[in-house]
């Protein structure tokens, strides 16, 4: 029983990473109709950002958690203005391809500078112990990541559901033409929303640094799992993406624990689930047909 709870907990933690990434991807897609292939690369840059700040400026984790997402978010806004914006009127495929090219460039720049070896990053002080919550000892840092990610998801949901910006974003997501006709300047929100989505991916990267090996390739395989997650949840649905992320995190962790002699199970479960969902509900579990373009 303790083992099961422990695996479940670890599943929720990896689900939290997937959720932060899927959330950023979904928000960007909703507003811009862009599937950001470079999202995994931003995650990697986030982890590297934390490492570089510690290594060259001596800035600890907490500063990285603040600085890195802001810097990456601003960088994302610049990229949106410089490149992505030019292609919005064209087939969404072109932006998919553009961000793919950007991902190759950014990944190779990091490889060039830092090599492909993994770099360790110490668990931030104060969170390096364990928490005793009765049933078993939880690593404190993982509890923190889980809480942080859940809080971030709730915050984004509250912004989307309760604030004026959220109303505009949701309206522009569903009917951009009608929203514009009502006199709302949709274009004004596009760049900040893109920056925000990028910042979320960077945030996930900083959070990952103390837990996972920091290396230039850490984002490239993860992004494909995130793509599968949003296909399962329904790319048009923020809630669906987050729910699917936690579900997949759990299923993967259980697979890892109970089929450990057969590691392939954990790796391909997400794709098998995706195949099943495509058979049963091609728009994803929470997706709507009009978002299926």
């Amino acid at each position: 029983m303790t083992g099961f709870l422990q695996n479940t907990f670890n599943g929720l933690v990896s689900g939290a990473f997937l959720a932060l990434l899927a959330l950023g991807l979904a928000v960007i897609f909703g507003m811009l109709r862009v599937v950001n292939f470079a999202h995994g690369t931003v995650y990697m840059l986030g982890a590297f950002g934390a490492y570089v700040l510690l290594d060259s400026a001596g800035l600890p984790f907490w500063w990285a958690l603040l600085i890195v997402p802001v810097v990456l978010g601003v960088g994302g806004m610049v990229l949106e203005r410089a490149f992505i914006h030019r292609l919005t009127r064209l087939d969404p495929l072109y932006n998919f391809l553009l961000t793919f090219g950007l991902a190759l460039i950014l990944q190779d720049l990091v490889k060039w500078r830092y090599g492909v070896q993994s770099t360790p990053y110490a668990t931030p002080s104060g969170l390096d112990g364990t928490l005793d919550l009765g049933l078993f000892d939880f690593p404190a840092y993982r509890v923190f990541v889980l809480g942080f990610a859940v809080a971030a998801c709730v915050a984004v949901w509250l912004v989307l559901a309760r604030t004026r910006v959220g109303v505009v974003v949701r309206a522009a997501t569903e009917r951009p033409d009608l929203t514009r006709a009502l006199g709302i300047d949709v274009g004004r929100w596009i760049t900040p929303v893109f920056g925000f989505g990028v910042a979320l991916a960077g945030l996930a990267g900083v959070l990952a640094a103390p837990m996972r090996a920091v290396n230039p390739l850490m984002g490239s395989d993860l992004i494909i799992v995130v793509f599968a997650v949003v296909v399962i949840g329904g790319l048009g649905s923020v809630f669906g993406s987050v729910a699917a992320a936690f579900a997949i995190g759990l299923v993967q962790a259980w697979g890892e624990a109970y089929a450990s002699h057969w590691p392939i199970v954990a790796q391909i479960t997400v794709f098998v689930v995706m195949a099943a969902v495509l058979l049963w509900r091609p728009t994803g579990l929470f997706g709507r047909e009009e978002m299926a373009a």
Partner: protein
Amino acid sequence: MRWVRPALAAAGLAVALWLPNGLYPAVAVEILCWVLFAVAVDLLLGYTGLLSFGHAAFWGTSAYVTGLVAIGSGWPFPLAVLAGALAAAALALPIGYLAVKRTGIYFAMVTLAFAQMVYYIANEWRSVTRGENGLQDVPRTLGGLDLSDAYWFYYAALPLVLLGVLAAWRIVHSPFGRVLVAVRDNPARARALGYPVHRYKLLAFVLSAFLAGLGGGLFAMAHRFVSLDTLHWTTSGKAVIIVVLGGIGTLWGGAVGSALVVRLEDWLAFSGFEQVGLVTGAVFVLTVLLFRRGIWGSLAQLAARLPKRQG
């Protein structure tokens, strides 16, 4: 102008026949393989409007099957390649059946995800794929001919490639190909006209996988070695780069794009610059931003304008 097409085809054939005399034969062979891959991807992207980002699954599966067949049986290489291509087509049937339920960006993500699944399976199935070591010493035989030299292998492989390209050309210029274009331009209308859109897309997907498989099989033969790289998603991305650079929806563009990208990578490798992705990524970004018709598409557009200016 009626003479343009035959003249272009003749010129293309002449270039293909001359190629290993002007380039390192090994590079020329590599170009041949990628031409098939690019044509396969363009058959879907250019003529059916489906961006497959997972074609490495078919290229790589065929490379492994070709390698295993050649090692296990010692068949003449075209038969081994054919076996690989058939395996790729067989794999494309279930993947395509699920993938064509989605279009556009979704289709790209779904194909990418399934290709990654194939990659993981190959990575774990070490008794067959030999894991990190890859399949080594793939024999390259054709009857009693000695094909160990890349120069002669080029000429032995060329007919297969020409057949594949010709098949693609026949497909896009057949009534079936016209339906594919109709599906690309207006799926609702094609459906209203009574065409089973999903079935057409699936058939196009399987045919494309077969062609990509021909290329992948030849690739295994060309290197006499098969590694997991053939299944990695960056390989799918490279095929798409070649198509976009050459020109989407122009089969010729695939040939031009392959020649350029393979040549560029070869040159980079020689110069000792290891960050190939940096350069190919930059080429890709610039093409998508400034040069969306690609090389062949831009040339064709220019050629179409010329007579008007004179008149």
